[in-house]
């Protein structure tokens, strides 16, 4: 997919530059782009280190497990197929909490563990068709529920934003509403697909 998109972007640029006569600018853009990418990573690297370092402290202190317990009444309601002490429910809570905290590196393995538990809990664990809980879980993972988007704020600061965090309330509202729409659509669509998928 990315192979196609990347090549497409480059070829479109080349053709467009011929038409608009901007070949010198295009040539300059190759060098500028490469340089900008490196300076961007260097500029944001410090803040990324600070944040992952702090998050490591939170993780070691058991913050993810603590918050997962706190949130489990909410999360459980979304996944009624699993008993609250089941391994699937625990893995789901841990993954969603890691996402809230913005622990990208930790969230993915926890999410894969949750998917494996959900698959193992099915009547037919070799099924190739997703069940409703899996779809709901993945939809929650495709919506960003990160409380403090540090990378984005660092980027904004890098480009001269006066208050890189002033967008937080806007981001929270947009996140919550889009997550709710994801839920509702998932709920609406799930009933219309094959019946045997409804049982776990």
């Amino acid at each position, binding site marked *: 997919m990315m192979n196609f998109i990347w090549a497409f972007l480059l070829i479109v640029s080349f053709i467009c530059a011929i038409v608009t006569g901007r070949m010198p600018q295009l040539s300059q853009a190759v060098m500028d782009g490469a340089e900008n990418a490196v300076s961007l990573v260097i500029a944001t690297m410090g803040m990324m280190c600070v944040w992952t370092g702090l998050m490591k402290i939170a993780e070691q202190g058991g913050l993810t497990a603590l918050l997962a317990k706190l949130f489990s009444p909410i999360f459980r309601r979304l996944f009624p197929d699993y008993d609250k002490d089941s391994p699937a429910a625990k893995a789901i809570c841990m993954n969603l909490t890691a996402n809230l905290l913005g622990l990208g590196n930790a969230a993915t393995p926890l999410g894969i563990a949750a998917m494996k538990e959900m698959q193992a809990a099915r009547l037919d664990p070799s099924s190739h068709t997703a069940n409703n809980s899996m779809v709901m879980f993945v939809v929650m993972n495709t*919506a960003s529920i990160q409380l403090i988007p540090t990378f984005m704020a660092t980027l904004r600061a890098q480009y001269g934003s006066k208050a890189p965090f002033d967008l937080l309330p806007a981001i929270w509202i*947009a996140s919550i509403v889009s997550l709710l729409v994801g839920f509702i659509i998932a709920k609406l669509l799930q009933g219309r697909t094959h019946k045997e998928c409804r049982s776990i």
Partner: protein
Amino acid sequence: MNLSALNTFSAYVIPVAVISIVVFGLIRRVPVFDTFLSGAKEGFSSAVSILPSLVGLIVAVSMLNASGALELLSHFLAPVTNALGFPAEVMPMAILRPISGSGSTAMLTQIFGSHGPDSFIGRVASVIMGSTETTFYAIAVYFAAVGIKKTRHAIPAALAADFTGYVMSVLTVNLFFPPS
């Protein structure tokens, strides 16, 4: 919303987060500095590991911009997006967002560079980046991990959520930063 209250609030976010995490670590008897170092090392290596894909995509997006293709596309999309109140300049990023994290980051830096992060366009782009994820990547990773081939309604529901994020970005930016 009162802008100065918002600024005061945003000034507190980082310091409060830092202090509460460290105090939490101390209470839970975590060796805070050693742990910080090992976490920072992870951040360092993940920053290094995204460098190659960022170089590739920022070069591509810079070329797209320098060639005039982005301008042309925005111009082309403007009648449609303007009718929806959505800035046409953000459209290329919105299209790339569900497919590629680095690609949309490259687009975001392009927008910040041309319009500034505190412009209406820059803010809408920021809210989109903050409220959506690389949808197709997450779907691929999680379903592939357990051998699921039929994802049923996952893609439509996830894309509906992304689309809502786009619509909400314009609404919330207008709400918190009303055009004067």
